[in-house]
């Protein structure tokens, strides 16, 4: 393991009874990197995150976080990480300050140091006026920002974000993206899971796509797009398929997405030509993006267990 490696996973597996939640996951995360974990529900993202700090005990492979094995040395790891879990799990009956004081003490901050740190972070998250408000009076976006404050109390080196912006409005989402970007610029390492492709593109230096417990694609967002799904996509109504088929070239790809029929071609002009030849106008013509990569790698149809 190199000195710069924060997370080092080789063949990490997790089996529940006969179900393989993780098959053989390899992943290196270096200091200062922001890595995104993408994948359908049940792909193993949260299982892997749990493995990193010892609440999920892996059943195979090697795993080190800051050089420590989470099964045996979870506390050494947990002193250096901050986690924003899927559920906020704030104490609803307590105030903002009381909630944060408890977690500051868990994180090892002295009583004296805690309050200053809490006020500073509440300021960063635009929550300074909510210091004495009971949790139950906060909006969903405020609670999520407070969960970020909680994760940052002990000034962690590695930030683990499990679906950090699910269900939030765009302004809160942008605020959180700015904060995460700031943290990464200050040298923090970030591991984030998300279902929002745009979020992954904005935040992540590198993306790991998981499907059924295995890595199915790794790379920088642009690199993944160039490698897995380069070019442009024309989206047509499904009934247009018969009209389109005779005009497709062998290198192009035709696939279905819901009630739509999509054609991917290397050049934008190819799609314009296709429209003309088939006598159709596409619903949309656009460059390919991470979502196209994601859907290609994880399969476009829902599995039975969805």
């Amino acid at each position, binding site marked *: 393991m190199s000195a710069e490696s924060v997370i080092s996973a080789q063949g990490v597996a997790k089996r*529940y009874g006969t179900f393989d939640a993780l098959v053989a996951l390899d992943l290196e995360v270096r200091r200062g990197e922001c890595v995104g974990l993408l994948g359908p529900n049940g792909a193993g993202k949260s299982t892997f995150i*749990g493995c990193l*700090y*010892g*609440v*999920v*005990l892996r059943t195979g492979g090697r795993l080190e976080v800051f050089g420590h094995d989470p099964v045996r040395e*979870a*506390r050494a790891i*947990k*002193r250096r*990480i*901050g*986690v924003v*879990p899927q*559920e*906020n*799990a*704030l*104490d*609803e*009956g*307590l105030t903002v300050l*009381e909630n944060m004081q*408890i*977690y500051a*003490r*868990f*994180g*090892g901050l002295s009583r004296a140091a805690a309050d200053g740190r809490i006020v500073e972070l509440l300021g960063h998250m635009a929550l300074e006026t909510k210091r004495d408000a009971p949790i139950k009076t906060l909006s969903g976006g405020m609670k999520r920002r407070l969960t970020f404050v*909680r*994760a940052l109390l*002990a000034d962690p080196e590695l930030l*683990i974000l499990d679906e950090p912006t699910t269900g939030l409005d765009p302004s809160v989402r942008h605020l959180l993206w700015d904060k995460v970007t700031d943290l990464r610029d200050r040298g923090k390492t970030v591991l984030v899971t998300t279902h929002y492709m745009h979020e992954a593109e904005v935040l992540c230096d590198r993306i790991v796509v998981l499907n059924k417990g295995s890595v199915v694609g790794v790379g920088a967002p642009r690199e993944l797009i160039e490698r897995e799904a380069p070019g442009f996509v024309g989206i047509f109504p499904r009934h247009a398929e018969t009209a389109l088929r005779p005009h497709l070239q062998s290198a192009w790809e035709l696939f279905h997405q819901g009630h739509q029929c999509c054609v991917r071609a290397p050049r934008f002009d190819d799609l314009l030509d296709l429209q003309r030849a088939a006598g159709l106008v596409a619903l949309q013509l656009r460059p390919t993006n991470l979502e196209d990569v994601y859907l290609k790698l994880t399969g476009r149809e829902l599995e039975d267990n969805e």
Partner: protein
Amino acid sequence: MSEPLESLRLAWHVVVRNWLVYRKDFVANISPTLADPALIMFSLGMGLSPFIGQIDGHSYAQFLAPGMIATTALFTAFFESSYGFYVRMTFESVFKAMLTTPIGVREVILGEFLWVFVRAGLMALGVTLVLFLLGLLPNPWAVLICPLIAGFLSLPCAAIGLLATSWVRNINQFQTVYSFLIAPTYFLSGVFFPLQGQPALAVVVQFSPFYHGVRLIQCVVWGQFPVVEMLQHVAALIGFTLVLGFFAFRRIDRKLTV
């Protein structure tokens, strides 16, 4: 800081967290703990005493009094570590958040036992003071010793609550545990009637930590000191705490880490 000390420090902060949450609904939280024994003392104790002869030289109210202290420990511990712990674990996801901090499952469980000890001890102190004011505690120093015994009695009771938590599939199933285990323990362990006339029952209750706590508190309140018997009760309480605590730890560990 050394690891065991750090463990204790973290477990103590779990206690502080529970105390802060508990404090918010203090009156609601302490009401049943204090009202129930007061009602029993008034209805059964004061109400029946004139009709019941002396039991081992005590009026019925005097006979009931120590059992109320032990009962406080049983109920405080059982309800806290069954319903209370279960709600924290499932509905509130408290441990999901806690376990992302340096706190591990060991500290969560250690903290739970410490919390139950403190809470049961304080509640028992409240009940003891009430009994003292009613003139049912002839020995003033029992006011200090009884809450301490109640604290230690609460530990195996908390282990039973945690075992129930690890075992139920939904929160309603605690009612089964209450009806078939906790309620019989409460009614049949020598709190309400002496066991001298019930040889079979006297054997069965040996397997209940509650009975040993009841007897210890009765000895202290009544100012009787059968040393050998008391040492046996102390040993039994320690044994039950270690054995039940060990299994509770293993079962909850498997609930919190997968």
